[in-house]
């Protein structure tokens, strides 16, 4: 159903595969704010529970998961929805991570909670600018060529970071702060919790922006480029422009993911953002389903949590460290049994609808 851009391309109420809703527009508009805000409040409460019931290790992994969700969904925009193949996404993440980390350590002393938001935005903008510079020439290329250019770019970023003494070079940048704890009367919001709030804020914002984008007229353009570039061009779509836009937006959110990662890990080394990190993102996108945002969210959760909470305990029981072997095996099995990923091109609410109605 998503494969047919021409049919629904000019639909003013762009919702994948649904009949135009009967609800009046203002109400829908209001609802679109209620859902994310509601999700934020709910997750904030869940955070309080996690805070009380889990240790720092679990909390750290959860923060990594948030970073991975943003990282994976942002790549899905390029690889899944627009059908381009970027394998240098870690480079953009690195830019965001280092920008935010540098601002919070060297530029601003004792940053406040809200400082962290603009640090992340700055990180995202730096990444987006880099995305524009890389995207403009390279997105005229197709398929394998684009893959090679992005791969090269990812490496260039890493090598630049490696050779910049101001951000620690090969030793890395350490002592990156987290948002400080907040004391309100009897309630103490720990620095994990503040960091968690920041992370879920970005996760929800990313999902809302990407969701609304891919379900808009612009999203239809992305899909048309994916399905048939020539047909898209003949419909009057400037495909290069569409691809560059997608790439810049995707880079921006990869930068945000980097910022979330940096303040969770509190230390960065260029080695973290090597080729394997880009591959991680591709794994999450493919595992979740190319062209499914909620699929990417699930896959990011699986990829982050599986090695830590399932395979580590397994190692404890068996005494042999087969973590990476089993992880790879799980991926292989999954791809054989479900080659289209967890959700394919569908989204979670689609499943709901099918069962509910």
């Amino acid at each position, binding site marked *: 159903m998503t494969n047919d851009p021409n049919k629904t391309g000019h639909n003013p109420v762009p*919702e994948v595969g*649904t009949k135009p809703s009967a609800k009046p527009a203002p109400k*829908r508009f209001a*609802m*679109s704010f*209620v*859902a994310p805000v*509601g*999700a934020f*409040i*709910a*997750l904030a*409460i*869940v955070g*309080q*529970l996690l805070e*009380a*019931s889990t*240790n*720092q*290790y*679990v909390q*750290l*992994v959860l923060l*990594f998961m948030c970073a991975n969700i943003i990282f994976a969904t942002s790549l899905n925009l390029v690889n899944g929805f627009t059908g381009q193949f970027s394998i240098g996404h870690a480079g953009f993440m690195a830019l965001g991570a280092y920008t935010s980390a540098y601002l919070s350590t060297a530029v601003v002393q004792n940053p406040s909670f809200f400082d962290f938001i603009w640090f992340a935005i700055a990180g995202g903008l730096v990444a987006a600018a880099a995305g524009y510079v890389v995207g403009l020439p390279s997105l005229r290329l197709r398929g394998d060529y684009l893959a090679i250019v992005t791969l090269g770019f990812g490496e260039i970023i890493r*090598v630049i970071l*490696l*050779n910049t003494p101001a951000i*620690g*070079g*090969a*030793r*890395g940048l*350490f*002592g990156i702060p987290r948002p400080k704890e907040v004391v309100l009367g009897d309630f103490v919001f720990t620095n994990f919790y503040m960091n968690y709030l920041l992370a879920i804020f970005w996760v929800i914002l990313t999902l809302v922006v990407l969701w609304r984008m891919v379900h808009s007229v612009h999203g239809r353009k992305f899909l048309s480029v994916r399905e048939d570039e020539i047909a898209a061009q003949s419909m009057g779509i400037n495909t290069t422009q569409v691809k560059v836009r997608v790439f810049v937006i995707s880079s921006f959110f990869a930068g945000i993911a980097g910022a979330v*990662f940096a303040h969770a*890990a*509190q*230390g*960065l*080394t*260029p*080695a*973290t953002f090597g080729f394997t990190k880009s591959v991680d993102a591709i794994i999450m996108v493919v595992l979740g389903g190319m062209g499914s945002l909620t699929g990417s969210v699930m896959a990011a959760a699986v990829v982050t949590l599986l090695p*830590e909470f399932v395979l*580590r305990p397994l190692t404890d029981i068996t005494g042999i*460290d087969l*973590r*990476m072997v089993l992880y790879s095996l799980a991926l292989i099995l999954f791809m054989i049994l479900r080659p289209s990923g967890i959700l394919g091109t569908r989204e979670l*609410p689609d499943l*709901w*609808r099918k069962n*509910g109605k």
Partner: protein
Amino acid sequence: MFKKLLALPLALAVVASVGCTRKSDQAAGGGSASASGSSNEILVGEFGSFTGGEATFGISTSNGIKMAFEEANAKGGVKGKKLVLKSLDNQGKAEEAASAVTRLITQDHVTAILGEVASSRSLAAAPIAQQNKIPMITPSSTNPKVTEVGDYVFRVCFIDPFQGTVMAKFASENLKAKKVAILRDVKSDYSVGLADYFQKKFKELGGEIVIDTSFQSGDIDFKAQLTQIKATKPDAVYVPGYYTEVGLIARQARQLGIEVPLLGGDGWDSSKLYEIGGKAINGNYFSNHYTTESTDPAVSDFIKKYKEKYGETPDALAALGYDAAKVLIAAMERTADLKPEQIRDEIAKTKDFQVVTGKITIDDKRNAVKPAVIVKVDGNVNRFVTTIAP
């Protein structure tokens, strides 16, 4: 559809708010669980690179630690309690090191932490140990910044400045070198650190650095840099890298006709060095923590036992892993009741403690003060040349 989207968070919110009332009891119960267990076991955590490019480092270190623990346990353990080692792999990644150490401390409740070889990974882990007030001893992270993290972080090896300085002294005084070329691995903080301090000391001693060029670990072709170096006609070439690249560099240097000795640091120390470098590696010098040629009974005893157990000659990392464990065990023995802060205090008091790599004294910056040895590579054997005291 939005209605349904909304329903989910609301449902979660209800569930969460119900669960929320229990928060206070949980915090009270969970928060007070202290690090030192009451059973007759002492859990010590180790994190290292057991997979990935630097796997031999992690495995050697771990072998050394395990041996020290087994010996202590054979003698009845520490204060009648059995030492148990929990090792976690970090795949050579800094963020994995951070999560591994967080796990060891907050989930497994270890009493102390041992690790890592690479300074960047120790730096990722040290703040976590410091925050949770769990003593951490790194066997072989030589970067000065590691122990600067806080008063719970120690090391049993010397630091980069010392190794670079020692080699500069050796080049200038023993080799009588006047002109030295530097070929550093810019990707490694270790290599950069050694090169910087070598350069500083060598210039102080009246020498000249004729060229300072670089490569990256993972490179396999070094001919461009070596050709440049050859043109400057140096008396020696300082290559403070890791064994993989050094082996290749040695081969290519000899092929290009660079006959002057190559100098390096403890990153050369691996049985793989000769495997990769072949004959080209012979006759080159590097600074190290210990040498298997030493006649010291402590050393020969260690080598004998290690060979029996693992069937190979222990490298310096194995020796340092063993030493780190020994220092920790000795400190634990001296404590009253094995509280992490007591162990910290006792590690800090370590003085003239005889271990495999020499007599260790922990200074007020929590670094080990001890001599370095210079060895000459001769096939699979590292011939002892001289000892240079701090």
